[in-house]
């Protein structure tokens, strides 16, 4: 059964916090809930960016997601 939106957000945040890498691809979040469709997953991840729980990191060709403080530490 698919997680609720809030449960999914918590699972995504947890994964982004615990991951050894500060930046994750959108596909890395698919495992948080295999029942959530990819397009719904990206909508949730983008909503979390608007809320400040995640941040985008872009190379120009690819975009990744991460916890804002972790990415900022990596940048400096």
């Amino acid at each position, binding site marked *: 059964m698919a997680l609720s939106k809030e449960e999914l957000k918590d699972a995504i945040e947890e994964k982004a916090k615990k991951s050894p890498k500060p930046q994750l*691809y*959108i596909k890395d979040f698919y495992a948080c809930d295999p029942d959530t469709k*990819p*397009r719904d997953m*990206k909508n949730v991840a983008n909503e979390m960016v608007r809320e400040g729980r995640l941040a985008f990191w*872009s*190379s*120009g*060709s*690819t975009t990744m997601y991460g916890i804002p403080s972790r990415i900022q530490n990596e940048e400096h």
Partner: protein
Amino acid sequence: MAKHETPLLDQLETGPWPSFVTDLKRQAETKPECWDILGILELSYKDRITHWKHGGIVGVFGYGGGIVGRYADMPKQFPGVEHFHTIRVAQPASKYYSTANLRQLMALWEKHGSGMTNFHGSTGDIILLGTRTENLEPFFWDLTHDMGQDLGGSGSNLRTPANCIGMSRCEWSCYDTEEACHHLTMTYQDEIHRPAFPYKFKFKFSGCPNDCVAAIARSDISVIGTWRDNIRIDQAAVKEYIAGNYPSNGGAHSGRDWGKFDIEKEVIALCPTNCMWMEGGELKIDDKECTRCMHCINVLPRALRPGADQGASVCVGAKAPILDGAQFSTLILPFIKVTKDNDFEELIEFIEKVWDWWMEVGKNRERVGETMQRVGLPTFLSVMGVEPIPQHIKEPRSNPYVFWKEEEVEGGFERDIREFRARHAA
């Protein structure tokens, strides 16, 4: 007065062509940070390594694309390029500009950035090179509020869709490329401005198989105008070309004397499928053999025109440096109607089917053409619900492995071995 010594770059100014070094020096007279571009590039030539740091978290609020972070790794030595972010501005359909619009955009970029531009990037966007993080939001506000323009796509987003000039100026366009491009741009605003995919995704719209926007070479979904009836022939105009009264190729090669026009040599013999011939003084075409190369139509534009039953072919999966080298997109839908009458419903349905599959099956940083290549065309066609046709096959008989499904075999895989052996002795 130069801020840095640049002997290596100075050599680039000595050639016969206009030099970007000269341009940068001129720009540095009003934008001193441009001296630091020259300085850091000179150092890179000496060190044989880039001093740019790639990527970052910069952007404008609510958008996940359109800004590409760039930083120098020696900010103390080159403070002018400590931040040097790139901004991608969506180009107007067909790249129709008014000079007033261009002047306003340049004034805006002089105010908020380095003044350096690239018209246009490979995707088609206007590229504005070099600004600091704190300038991004003010620039974005002015661009959207004062000019009514928007950022383009970057990162794992749908990139700014591009189209040829289409019906606005070209009589060969088989559908309204500008309308299609505009409609899909507005439909997919979320996908353009916020990352949605495992990697970048592009679609481009060409009105006819001349493919002036190079959709087949550069886009994940190429929508290329075509027709499914016969090439329209004006036999009287054919005679005028043969008599030398009309210039071939619309006079495009008239700067030199190529001799008398020879329809056999210049048109019929160059048809890749040999589907044309002269009979009783008239040009004949076996249209079912036509591969839409457009050569005859290009050479005889007053005599030949695309057919009247018009639409588009949809090809999927182009990418420049793919596994085996550059790859054109592969024909998937030979013909669909592309029209605003049904809000491009057929095209949109296909695009979303491709996306749903690729978002699930595609690997990180894998373009849809690479995913297709990995799983094979038969699997892709099956997932898309497209019946295979001969045009899907690049070359026959090169792959001996044909995997039938049970439902495709009459009687299935079960058989009576005794009955079989009665007819075929072991």
